[in-house]
């Protein structure tokens, strides 16, 4: 911990502080002002213009009684759990790249992982949307070609789900029961370039002497992963975990593009962010949307604090 310095000493070269003024102004203007404005407007019945009506805590009370909002946390909970598992392929790939003995190949694999990042996210979403097309999409074609569709139909007949039927293409985004599975399948094989690079950075900080000692002890490759690599990249895993939770809670672009503003059939794809968007832009209830945003903020803050406090990293 750095030693405290006296105010006199701190202000000795006060002019240097001017260098951070532009950044502070930008952060204040673009980050804190909108947030403060959202807090202010959450106390009003406001449709986005100059006319607004003070309603006190009315919007917050309404949020507490909003079934759609609270039900959307079920969807988001499932997606968060799924996303935890979806982090695994990135960890494995990072380990595989790390273990390559050739620096040249390591470099090329890193490039290959990063390359898809240049494709705009929207394009990827559109491609996936096409994958899910019931009649001409790749997913149904693969299921038909491999005979997996017949297996699904048999399972369906067994459990009487009424989702998969012979001769009827699977409407991945048109059938309420398939919406959450579709949102989970999205992005297969779930290798995120940022995740791989962050895990790789953690792995590369592990000293070679650790591996040499492990080799002398006759540790198997999987044991190396379990007892050396995974514990030593826990900081990175935790970072990605926090970012993932925040991203999943805040995000709604995927649901908006695949399912529309209503959250798809049965509203099964409704997530808090999409509901906030729906209230603001479809219902014109901007003040209420601000209150929803504040609830979301509190949730994210609480989850991050819990994570920081209880998910400890012992190296």
């Amino acid at each position, binding site marked *: 911990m750095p030693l405290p310095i006296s105010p006199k000493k701190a202000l000795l070269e006060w002019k240097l502080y001017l260098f951070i003024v532009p950044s502070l102004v930008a952060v204040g203007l673009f980050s804190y002002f909108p947030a403060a404005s959202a807090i202010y407007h959450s106390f009003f*019945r406001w*449709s*986005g*213009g*100059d*006319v607004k009506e003070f309603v006190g805590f009315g919007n917050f009370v309404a949020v507490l009684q909003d079934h759609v909002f609270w039900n959307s946390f079920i969807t988001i909970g499932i997606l968060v759990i799924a996303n935890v598992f979806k982090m695994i392929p990135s960890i494995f790939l990072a380990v595989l790249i790390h273990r390559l003995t050739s620096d040249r190949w390591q470099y090329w694999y890193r490039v290959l992982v990063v390359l898809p990042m240049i494709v705009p996210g929207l394009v990827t979403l559109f491609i996936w*949307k096409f994958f*899910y*097309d*019931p*009649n*001409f999409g790749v997913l149904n074609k693969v299921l038909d070609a491999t005979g997996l569709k017949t297996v699904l139909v048999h399972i369906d007949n067994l459990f009487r789900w*009424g989702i998969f*039927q012979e001769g*009827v*293409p*699977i*409407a*991945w*985004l*048109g*059938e*309420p029961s398939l919406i959450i599975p579709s949102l989970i399948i999205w992005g297969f094989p779930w290798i995120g370039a940022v995740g791989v690079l962050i895990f790789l950075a953690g792995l590369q900080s592990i000293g070679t002497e650790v591996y040499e000692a492990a080799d002398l002890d006759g540790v198997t490759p999987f044991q190396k992963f379990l007892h050396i690599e995974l514990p030593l990249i826990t900081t990175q895993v935790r970072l990605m975990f926090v970012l993932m939770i925040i991203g999943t809670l805040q995000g709604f672009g995927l649901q908006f593009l*695949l*399912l*529309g503003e*209503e*959250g*798809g*059939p*049965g*509203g099964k794809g409704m997530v808090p962010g999409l509901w906030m968007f*729906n209230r603001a*832009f*479809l*219902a*014109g*209830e901007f003040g209420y949307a601000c209150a929803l945003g504040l609830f979301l903020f509190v949730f994210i803050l609480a989850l991050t604090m819990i994570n920081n406090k209880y998910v400890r990293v012992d190296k």
Partner: protein
Amino acid sequence: MERILNTIGISLLALCFVISLSRIAMLRFGERTEAGDKVIEIRLAHWQLEGGVRTAIDKMAEEYMKLHPGVRITQIPIPERIYRNWLITQLVGGTAPDIIQIGIGITDERLARFFVPLTDLAQKPNPYNKGTDLEDTPLRDTFVDGMLGGFNQNLLEYYGVPISGHSIRMFINEDLLEEITGSRDLPLTYEDLIALTKQVDDFSQKHGRPIIPIAGSRYNSPLMMTTLFISQTQKKMRELGPPGTLLEVPARTTEALVDGDWGLDSPEVLSGLGLMREVAAEMQPGFMQVTRDDASFYFVQGRALMIVTGSWDATSISQQANFPFAATRIPLPSRQHPRFGGNVLGMFSEAGLTAGMAFGLTRDSEHPEVATDFLQFLASRETNQLFTNTSKWLPAVLGVEPDAQARPFMMESQGYTPGFPLVNAGARADTSRLVANNFHLLVGPTGSVEQFVAAIRENFIPFVLVDLTREQREILQAIQRMDVQLAALGEVSRSKPDDAQAQRKFDMITAAMSARDRSAYFQQHLIRKTDKRIQEDSN
């Protein structure tokens, strides 16, 4: 070598930066005309990205700029999907373009707050019609619909200048139709349509070539389904009282719903829903997850025989399809239809359709007089002719000859009054969401009319109440906005009793405000009624 490459890189970066900066500076601080005057920029935003429209707007802008070298018209096309969000952000942020297409994302309150009423303009002759028989005709009377497409019924003001007409049609691939049926005869009734879809299914099975009878999507399917639904409420609509208009009046049908004159269990509604379910079976499975573009793609690729869409898509389809296609009215059940014939009066009159693609003038415009002049230019007969010739869209101005391609889409005035839809027009956000979220129960392979009705019954009227309350709030806010203006005009008319123009303006606004008050009171009456109905239902 590395140093040279770095120098080249930095130089290129610096060059790009300087070019960008100078371009922005030029746009910001203004281009100059040859005479040294600053060029006035008028920005026009719209969501019509269909084939031909942007070219048409560019051509109209070019013509205007030839007449006014000191003005530059910039077109801002915004995709329909994000138009609402873009528009609200621009309006609220005070960065809205001068001229904006009115429709998506516009409520009465936003119209009153952000747009300039064009009622005065509508009453004056259009100077750009000089030399024609419309020379002395007030602007509003130069339109095929009396400029109703730009008129707001609640605010009682003109806010938009429409430039095109539109209609909904069923497009049919003629080559494929002939291949399947042996003739190019179009289905005239719903019975013909269903018979045709069966022929398509047989053809698909026989030749192992999957053909979708009707390409559906969450955009296209409701166009067809709503038309079929309202064929079932035609007679009911007559029962509800004299309409006095060829358009359904949402307030009247909402009141009738609350009064119990119709409801989810009414035979007409059940029949309409049954009709929707039956026709949905002729669309590809999972059509409600498909977008408008995908559905159009199926059609132009010859994978679907038919698609229902608006006249606005005709140019795009003709540009992409390599086959001739016909456009016909959506066939309705004949009166002899055993299941659906009893509720039908007959094909609807399209005389009640108003002209569309209306452009409004925003209050943020730095040059409202130039923007207004450009709107008048757009509304002139000559310019509208240029528009229809280039876009192949229907004209909006009297005496403009539609292009041959647009003729099948001309509105047919003969026919009966249409019925009412399940969800009324307007900003019915929550009722629409309720229906959309449960629509799969109606059109899905394992769904049924009963399942759909059961799923929405409990919340249908409470959600109508939520929407009514929101709409009333908007009306009241729109009224509040006018208070200051009314007070000021009242003061002017009192202090200057001889000022006829101020007096006229004061009278006009007072009349409009009284009408808005009436509207707000009626809405309040509806809210009370709906609330009472909910209480009764829960007891």
